[in-house]
């Protein structure tokens, strides 16, 4: 079994009385692209900043490359490239100075040609001053800072915020190329689902400081409820059939006009279809949930409620 690159055990952080994260357990493996999803204020940045030793955990431990983040952070940082969520640079510096300074803080300085090449791809004028830049252009500096060094682990906290779609695409292309060339591991935090769906193999969903699910995207889709729409010829018929429905295995049952709308798990789809075999209906539609549906469902639920929901599903 592979040794995880990032491993946290019951990582907890309180800011005074206010909870940041609680009992966060994560394992991220080499060459994985791991998505870290959650709404604003869920604890994504707190987890990342704890991993980077910018803040100290109240309890629990974290290791990166098998090294304790509080004891051997210098060794860890030498193999990491990081984009923070809230990003600013010294306003009076030009871009070249900003990038060169940051990359000079690594043990092995980065070649100038790599910086220039990335700047050209991202259409970044290195001579411009930071104070003249838009948010998106500042984000491009961060992208250069994360892609230029030879890092084994990329920690990206909302990396594409403020970027236009074209540059966003370019960033993902560059990131994918880098991963192919170097085999680096990517830990991507975001609240933008399409972003995570595009590149992540596995995701963790965090809400109100607690991890509520860690799974591959396929597993998440399988866990999610399917939406079944049955159109009958009349409202009367819809109402009549409604009474015979196997209500125990379905949720959110509604009737609108002559259409019955219900949700069921992948496992309970079979009994629903067998029940439908004996009925005459006009039309049948089964929708797979989008990732957005899945995550919205998770975000709505309190961590403890989510656990009980999972249990219920398991029971079925």
């Amino acid at each position, binding site marked *: 079994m592979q040794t995880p690159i990032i491993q946290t055990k019951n990582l907890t952080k309180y800011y005074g009385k206010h909870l940041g994260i609680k009992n966060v357990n994560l394992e991220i493996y080499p060459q994985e692209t791991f998505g870290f999803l959650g709404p604003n204020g869920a604890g994504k940045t707190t987890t990342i900043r704890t991993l980077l030793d910018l803040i100290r955990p109240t309890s629990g431990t974290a290791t990166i490359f098998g090294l304790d983040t509080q004891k051997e*952070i210098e060794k860890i940082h030498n193999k990491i490239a990081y984009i*923070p969520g809230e990003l600013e640079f010294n306003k009076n510096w030009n871009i070249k100075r900003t990038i060169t300074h940051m990359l000079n803080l690594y043990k092995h300085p980065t070649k100038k040609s790599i910086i220039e090449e990335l700047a050209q791809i991202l259409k970044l004028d290195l001579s411009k001053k930071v104070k003249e830049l838009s948010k998106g252009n500042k984000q491009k500096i961060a992208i250069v800072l994360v892609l230029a060094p030879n890092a084994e682990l990329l920690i990206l906290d909302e990396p594409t915020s403020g970027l236009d779609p074209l540059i966003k695409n370019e960033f993902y292309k560059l990131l994918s190329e880098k991963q192919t060339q170097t085999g680096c591991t990517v830990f991507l935090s975001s609240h933008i689902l399409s972003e995570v769906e595009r590149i992540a193999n596995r995701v963790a969903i965090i809400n109100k400081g607690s991890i509520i699910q860690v799974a591959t995207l396929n597993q998440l889709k399988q866990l999610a409820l399917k939406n079944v729409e049955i159109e009958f010829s009349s409202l009367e018929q819809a109402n009549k059939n409604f009474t015979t429905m196997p209500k125990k295995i379905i949720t959110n049952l509604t009737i609108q006009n002559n259409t019955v709308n219900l949700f069921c798990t992948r496992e309970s789809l079979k009994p629903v279809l067998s029940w439908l075999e004996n009925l005459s209906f006009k039309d049948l539609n089964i929708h797979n949930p989008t990732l957005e549906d899945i995550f919205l469902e998770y975000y709505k639920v309190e961590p403890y409620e989510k656990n009980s929901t999972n249990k219920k599903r398991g029971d079925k």
Partner: protein
Amino acid sequence: MWKLLEIIKQDILDKKLSIIGMGILVGLMGFYVISLISSLDFTQMQSYIESLPEAFRAILGGALDLSNPYSLTNAYFYSFIWLYLGIFIIYVISNLIPQDIENHTIDITLSKTITRTKYLLGKVTFIFIFIVGLCLITTTFIALGMTSSSNFLDYGIYWDRVVAAFLLATIHLGTMAMTAVFFSTIFLDTKKTTIASVVLMFIMFFIGDFSSLMNPEIGETLQYASTWAYYNTGEVFGLGNFSNFPQNILALSTINVILAMASLIMFKKKDIPV
């Protein structure tokens, strides 16, 4: 090591104009003080002071020694260097770490291969380069003033007094800067750091310079709680008396080291705020 130098280099590049500008400004002030006293007759001045009533001389507290051009330069310049340069230094240093935090650059910096210890040591080293730079420029102007003043030339040019005053001023200003560093590691905020440092500076000034005059019994001991008690340029620069100089240098240096260590401990413990 070179990562530490990288931190120092960038701070020097950022603040070089401040060092040169402020150094020249305060240096010119010193030059002006020396040129003002160049035409004075010190023998007459001293007899005039001695002719003043005892009570009036007590108000001056014996601090105003006007017996020679060195002591008068000290009274107008070195005695108030904390005011001319100290507040400026506190203002600059209070910004140094909190600014990195307030604009979030510290997150990226500390995510690179640099520990908090090295980061802070880089900042502390820069601070001393900054102060030495300021004091070197001002001392150059003082030296220029001295060599072009007939009063100084008549009295004699004593470079050992200049060097001693330079050292005392540098280390004394260092304690003010280190106080600002210490407060900045506690508050991680520019405004709070500046206010706390300036307030403490004035408290120290009053304890050091006036406590023994206001209440000789308590003040004689209390004054040593202030760095001003060890900053005695009146003795070394004004009178050429070096008997307490090594102890004063040692005391001020120790305070600097203690404050730097305390800042380091505090900075290593603290969470870097978002």
